């Protein structure tokens, strides 16, 4: 799931000094730690919770709005970088350099497999993005585990299904404990079977029950799939053409129960495409969307556990 994990901000939690405190009423101070508001009393001790009176102050309101906004900002960064990957869009290295100082952008970009590309967009070198330096350019760890500095005008973030020798890179990432904020090399990938290629719709994820359509649509929102006309949509650009995967989740009353339906792929004219004609990334992403939504269906007989 492409959900941003909380970024590791202050490493030492007890280090209250590291938090930039803002003065609040009665000599108390407020600050933000790991995405939450924290409070310090006049004696300089960090409190376990924020006193009610302070919580309702204007400063606290602003800080909590800031916390929410920061979470949104992180999601926005994620969606943007993910889009670059899903649509195989080259990213000017100037942009990467400009964004790198922001920890949220950096978290999203770091450890992604990138291929540097020349001005025509042809791939040259592949490696895991480790660092960006205004002078040296883009620092990657290549397949041999060597660090390389590359000065290129733009880079590509390839979709895993397009990466040759994915296993090597997975191994390197695992060995060096590089983790990715955006699922790339460990992203579930799906390739169409010969049988599926003959079809124009997949029913493998149909009949998944949701007690309310609301539950299904808010799940889609969480996962970042817009819902249109009863379908969850995932739009991918491949070979310079937009193709959209659509997974039926129903369009009846929001409070009514609903069942998932077919997964189809439509071109910009909305004509359903034969799966053989659908690009590899599009197919993989479409099935990933359907499987993610289907995975959260209500299972009638839950054996033990959550129920």
């Amino acid at each position: 799931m492409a959900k941003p994990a909380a970024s590791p901000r202050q490493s030492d939690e007890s280090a209250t000094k590291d938090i930039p405190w803002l003065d609040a009423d009665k000599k108390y101070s407020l600050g933000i730690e790991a995405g939450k508001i924290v409070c310090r009393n006049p004696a300089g001790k960090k409190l376990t919770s924020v006193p009610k009176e302070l919580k309702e102050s204007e400063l606290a309101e602003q800080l909590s709005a800031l916390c929410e906004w920061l979470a949104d900002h992180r999601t926005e960064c994620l969606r943007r970088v993910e889009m670059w990957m899903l649509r195989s869009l080259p990213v000017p290295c100037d942009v990467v350099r400009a964004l790198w100082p922001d920890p949220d952008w950096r978290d999203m970009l770091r450890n992604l497999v990138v291929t540097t590309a020349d001005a025509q967009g042809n791939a040259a070198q592949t490696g895991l993005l480790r660092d960006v330096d205004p002078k040296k350019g883009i620092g990657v760890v290549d397949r041999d585990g060597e660090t390389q500095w590359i000065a290129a005008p733009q880079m590509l973030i390839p979709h895993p299904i397009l990466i040759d020798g994915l296993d090597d890179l997975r191994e390197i990432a695992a060995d060096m404990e590089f983790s990715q904020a955006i699922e790339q090399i460990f992203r579930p990938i799906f390739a169409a079977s010969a049988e599926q290629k003959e079809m124009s719709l997949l029913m493998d994820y149909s009949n998944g029950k949701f007690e309310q359509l609301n539950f299904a649509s808010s799940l889609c929102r969480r996962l970042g799939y817009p819902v249109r006309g009863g379908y969850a949509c995932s739009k991918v650009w491949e070979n310079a053409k937009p193709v959209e995967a659509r997974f039926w989740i129903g369009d009846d009353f929001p409070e009514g129960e609903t069942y998932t339906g077919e997964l189809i792929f439509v071109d910009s004219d909305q004509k359903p495409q034969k799966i053989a004609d659908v690009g590899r990334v599009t197919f993989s992403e479409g099935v990933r969307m359907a499987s993610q939504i289907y995975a959260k269906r209500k299972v009638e007989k839950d054996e033990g556990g959550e129920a």
Partner: protein
Amino acid sequence: MSTTTVQLEAGGLVAAKAKVDENAAEQLVARTYLHPALGNRAVIRLASDRLGQAEDLAMEFLGFAAPKISGPIAWQQRRSLGFAAWALINDPKNARFALDMVKRMKGAARLAKSKPGHAWDAYSEMAKDLGRSARHFLPPFWEEAGRTFKDIGNQTYAGRALNKSLEAERVHALESDRARRRDVVLEFVLSGCVSGSALSEYGDDLQNHYPPAEAYAIFRDLCVRRTRGGMAPWATLPKDLLKLAKAAKRDCDQEIESFLEELIEAPAMGRAPHPFWKACSGACKRITARSPAFAVALLRHTRPETRYYGESKLGAWFEMLEEWGVIEYLWEDRLRGAPPLDEPIAVWFGRVVCDEVPAPKRTLEMLEKLAPRLKKEKTPLGLAIRRRYGVSTIDIDVLEACFGLGVQVDDPPAEFEVTFAGWLSADVDHPLRNQDVVKSWRDERFKSAIYRGLDEALTCRGGTVQRGYRQSNLEQRPFALAAGDRPGICEVWRMHAEEIFASLEGSGLASFEVARERLEATLWPDTLRLFPDLAERLQRVDAAAMLRRTLQAGVFDEYGLPAFEKIVDDGKIKISPDRYGDTNLHLTFPNIAVSDKVHETVVGSDDKVRKHELRLPKKSQLAALVAIGDDLAVIYRDDQYRGHFFWASDPAQQYDSPG
């Protein structure tokens, strides 16, 4: 299209030095913001250069300081503008009124998720202020409000806000940016925030604001894109569209035909409501006459909906297909150069068959005509599909007809039934209705289900039965009349009767009672007339012998374990049998263990009684007693719900037990 244009259109970024169409693209800068509460952690926004001021204001609301701005770093496609940005670009002189609102709007947007009503009130308040200061900002203002609701999935308020925006334009007779307006309406329409009736009104709006030809072009474009975007056309769409077409002095017939042909492949057309098709009926007929592809597309859209009550909607749909001349494309694949159906006809027809049981006349007719194609394609026909709830049911006539016509039938699901309801129908409306049942019951896959169906059918004495909630009733004939003396049905009928007789002859009192009731419900004078030997056999059934057998085997009340009864009486133990484990009676053949709070007692089959003191740790609960040999395993759960057990002979030695 050049690579750059494609990349921009796909949402990509192009190097700042690249040559791009500057009307369609905008330059991006990185704005680095710092916040006192975040120390030196920088927040970097990728923002369009021309809209930087609006971004800064939004950030200021959160307490960020003025940013450090980089030089241009890339190009991106121009995006639709937010409220403040729109004001800055379009009316810089009055922009301050809009910018004043930015903070308040941010505040309302925060409310929108948890308290949409309060947020709405806040927006209304702001709209009042704007109405006084700069009312030409109202349309984009409401748009922005609507977008906020739309993004959190509150379609009701989103639609309402869009209406306000359109209304503001109307009421204040504002000059509107048409292209932008069109995009905005489309954006909301595609997220499902605008109802069909609101769109009808929007059509009227267009008529008032634009020259007829343009109004029609805009509306048509909206309808096309909406349908392509996956929304089913609304019922009065043809009417609304043609009203504008007429005003634009277009040929209405031609317009609706081109509209339909353009869109027929869109998946959303499969969900268009009945009145929509009814209104397009003439056009469909004309198109079908010249375009086989259109006919096949209509067949592809023939998808029965799951329904929980009410009549099947297929009847009316097929009537229309018939009228338009689409049906003939069903009997033969690729008729007159039509494209293929894209799925085996058996799969397509299977859905139709399963949609209505008992089968209407239409299903039987279609089956007969489709038989050659079904046989040629060789995909077995599924007569029962796994359903979400309830049991799927097969009409006996359809099943028998498949065997009769040589159509392969797919394996039924694990649970299914066969019904004679249509077979019994008083109105024999088709030669395949009420067939003699000859072949189907010889297929092992269906045999027992047909048997059960027959048992039910034999109880039918004629009259009216209900088919389902909100469905018309079904008139049935008495079974004997429907069956006649045809050999096939008589053979199964006879087997059914024989089975009951066998039960009467060989059982004890309890089963005898059951069999007698069955017989009473299913016996017809005709049973005895048709099968004279069975009549004789019935007369020979000896109730006295049955009673003797029963008494010899022992009456239930005679069974008992005196030792067990004694300890229950003596110890005043209350037996609480319970299926969900909360019981004090534990049966391990041939022993019975029973417990009260103090003791556990084991009674053997030889009347031997062993009594142990029940010693459980505090707050534990007895789970089971298992008598093994001379010993007794005591299984219990502690307060953490973990399982333990010990042997009654050695309570000190505790073991862990799973669950």
